[in-house]
């Protein structure tokens, strides 16, 4: 055996060194205008305040089950959403409240779903992890780690089939990146040139397991190498960098080049879920990230530096947002639970009557 392999080695001349697919480079962060900065500030702050309130309602027992907060990662969805056009779709796993708000879903409907009330997006039947809005092209909200990657690839298949020019933003975490179906999907997405942006929200911890303990290859931008899918690393704590990468990725997909991976370097401040005391990392690590890299604080600093708004104006924005979130929380606490008859609705759709022609 050894002999023959030596022989074949000398015979086969093509170089077999693994190389990075011809990837676009990480683009420079966009120079935001005043309007862009203030919009990003508002959108990210909305997510943060919403999540803080959700955490509070969970602590009070209004929200049950699992509740995964997005605090710290706000720049990712906010920047990506700014790069999309009408009709583009979004799908993610269960840390999904931020994605829904970024998709312009009504905070009242989202919060009421968290509390399991009839005014929730799924009429109380989905909960924090399973929420959808057909109107806003938000395809969930999925509780099975990695399943949304195949589903998002299928949504992109639909875009390709209908030639509608849309892309599907498929979000997943560093944890899901080790699921088999992710790579099955990568393969078919590239094979069929599907317009899908794979956004890996690398927040460094899959529940309590750090990427270095879970992943043989921790550079997630290279996870598409075997399928010739390019990937770029992005500062996921800088909304301008995210939007620049999002625009590049959307152009890539829309021009028919197939899928692309964005490795978003981000961080969640809270535990994996509400019941996670987060003992797998130090307080200093969290504190350092908050102090030096907070996505909202970074916008705030730039805005103040350029004198596009002063402290009072930013406080006014915060006040507006608090009012919206307080309204949502009020609604979510007072809205009735679903009617008992809802137990048996939405299981199967009725079938259209048959017509028979001879």
């Amino acid at each position, binding site marked *: 055996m050894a002999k023959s392999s030596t022989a074949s080695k000398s015979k086969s001349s093509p170089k077999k060194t693994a190389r990075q697919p011809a990837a676009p480079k990480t683009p420079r962060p966009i120079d935001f205008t005043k309007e862009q900065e203030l919009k990003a500030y508002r959108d990210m702050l909305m997510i943060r305040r919403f999540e*803080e*309130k959700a*955490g*509070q309602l*969970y*602590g*009070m*027992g*209004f929200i*049950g089950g699992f509740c995964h907060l997005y605090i710290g990662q706000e720049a990712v969805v906010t920047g990506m959403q700014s790069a999309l056009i009408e009709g583009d779709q979004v*799908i993610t796993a269960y840390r999904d409240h931020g994605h829904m708000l970024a998709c312009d879903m009504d905070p009242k409907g989202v919060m009421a779903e968290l509390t399991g009330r009839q005014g929730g*997006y799924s009429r*109380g*039947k*989905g909960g924090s992890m*399973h*929420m*959808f*809005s*057909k109107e806003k092209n938000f*395809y*969930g909200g999925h*509780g*099975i780690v990695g*399943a949304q990657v*195949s*589903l*998002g*690839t*299928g*949504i992109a*298949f*639909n875009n390709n*089939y209908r030639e509608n020019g849309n892309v599907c933003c498929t979000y997943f975490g560093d944890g899901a990146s080790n699921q*088999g179906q992710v790579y*099955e*999907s990568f*393969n*078919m997405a590239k094979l069929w040139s599907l317009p899908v942006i794979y956004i890996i929200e690398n927040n460094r911890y899959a529940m309590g397991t750090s990427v270095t303990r879970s992943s043989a290859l921790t550079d997630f931008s290279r996870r598409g190498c075997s399928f010739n899918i390019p990937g770029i690393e992005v500062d996921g704590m800088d909304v301008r960098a995210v939007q620049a990468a999002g625009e590049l990725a959307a152009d890539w997909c829309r021009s028919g080049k197939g899928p692309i991976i964005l490795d978003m370097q981000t961080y969640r*401040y809270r*535990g994996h879920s509400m*019941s*996670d*005391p987060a003992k797998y990392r130090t307080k200093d690590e969290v504190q350092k990230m*908050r102090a030096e890299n907070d996505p909202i604080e970074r916008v705030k600093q730039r805005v103040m530096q350029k004198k596009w708004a002063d402290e009072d104006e930013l406080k006014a924005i915060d006040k507006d947002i608090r009012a919206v979130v307080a309204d949502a929380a009020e609604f979510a*606490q*007072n809205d009735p639970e679903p009617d*008992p*008859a809802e*137990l*048996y*609705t*939405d*299981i*199967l*759709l009725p*079938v259209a009557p*048959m017509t*028979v022609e*001879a």
Partner: protein
Amino acid sequence: MATEILMPALSPTMEEGTLSKWLVKEGDDVAAGDVIAEIETDKATMEVEAVDEGKVGRISVAEGTEGVKVNTVIAVLVEEGESADDVAVNTTPADEQLSSSEKTEAPVQEAGSAASAPAAPAAAIADDPDIPSGTEMISTTVREALRDAMAEEMRSDDRVFVMGEEVAEYQGAYKITQGLLDEFGAKRVIDTPITEHGFAGIGVGAAMAGLRPIVEFMTFNFAMQAIDQIVNSAAKTLYMSGGQMGAPMVFRGPNGAAARVGAQHSQCYAAWYGHIPGLKVVAPYGAADAKGLLKAAIRDPNPVIFLENEIMYGQSFDVPKMDDFVLPIGKARIQKEGSDVTLVSFGIGMKYAIEAGAALAELGIDAEIIDLRTIRPLDMETVITSIKKTNRCITIEEGFPQSGIGAEIGMQIMQQAFDYLDAPVLRVTGKDVPMPYAANLEKLALPSVDEVVQAARSVTYK
């Protein structure tokens, strides 16, 4: 306005905990998100964050206090110019207070009561359409009938496409998709890599976005790789989205034992999928049912599991020559009327039932034979009506006995027609063993006509 900080719950089951440490003192300024205290339960320690900015006006529960009930006010934040003295602090849990502004209740532990779940509504299912007299009957194999069903539906609805391993250029591993690539092209007849989990998920995603996929599994044994996408994504999305989106699609392919292919390629999944709300499960026997039901499955706005059988593919049956022959999903068919005992089966199990029916006739036992055709929704009405006439029932299936289709039917008969029974319901099933390879053992593992005959004789006491 002052903000009360409440003792939080770390999980829905937590009722009280220890306030182990304060990280701030009265008079300190805090910002939203600052860690102000640590609480502890027997399972975990967790930080309490300030939900708002302000000055710590009062700490109402001292550090080290044990047994602090969830929702007790532990501190009060005040805004500039306010004093904690302006705020009346009530240290009982907030949800026990009945002030007019706080009359909402957290419905935490009520789910368990389930005092009165409403009854499941019954869905009306249409009868088979009449076939006009004089309609020509064409002898057709099950294979051709399935192909024709797909081709007809693909002609009438361009959202319908078929994907799976070897469905296009190879013309189908079992030639069910023969000719479809030529007629519809590679855009709509799609060869996938060998990657069931992945392509099933892609199919579900495409369906959620509005297409009508037909996902072919080379056999349903391989669909176990994809069962998460079928059950957790396809079946449940309509419910979880409050009716906003679902997965209108068909998963089809051969199910059950073929011949001499051993344990991993010989299993009936009717009971597996029959267990899941949100799915429809169809298992036809003859070619006409295969065609009419597959057309219905493709049109159905819900996910349909369509269980075929490799052994049946080459067998011929009469199929009415009609432009659009569609049958209702959810309706059993009486294959043969009889008065002494009811034989209930589906799919290839009908072979045993029909042959046993003939053998029983020679013994003077008049069996009524019911072909379920659909496993979910299960047409128990037809079965119960028959039991009320024959007072006896034998179920026949190739699947394993425990928690099988026969187990379900027997249970439902007991609930709905116990007083009509003159004998216990018996079931003839595959044996409770993995499928062996050796020819003699394989034969023993499968049901047999003789077992059906013996069961029928035993319940008719003949």
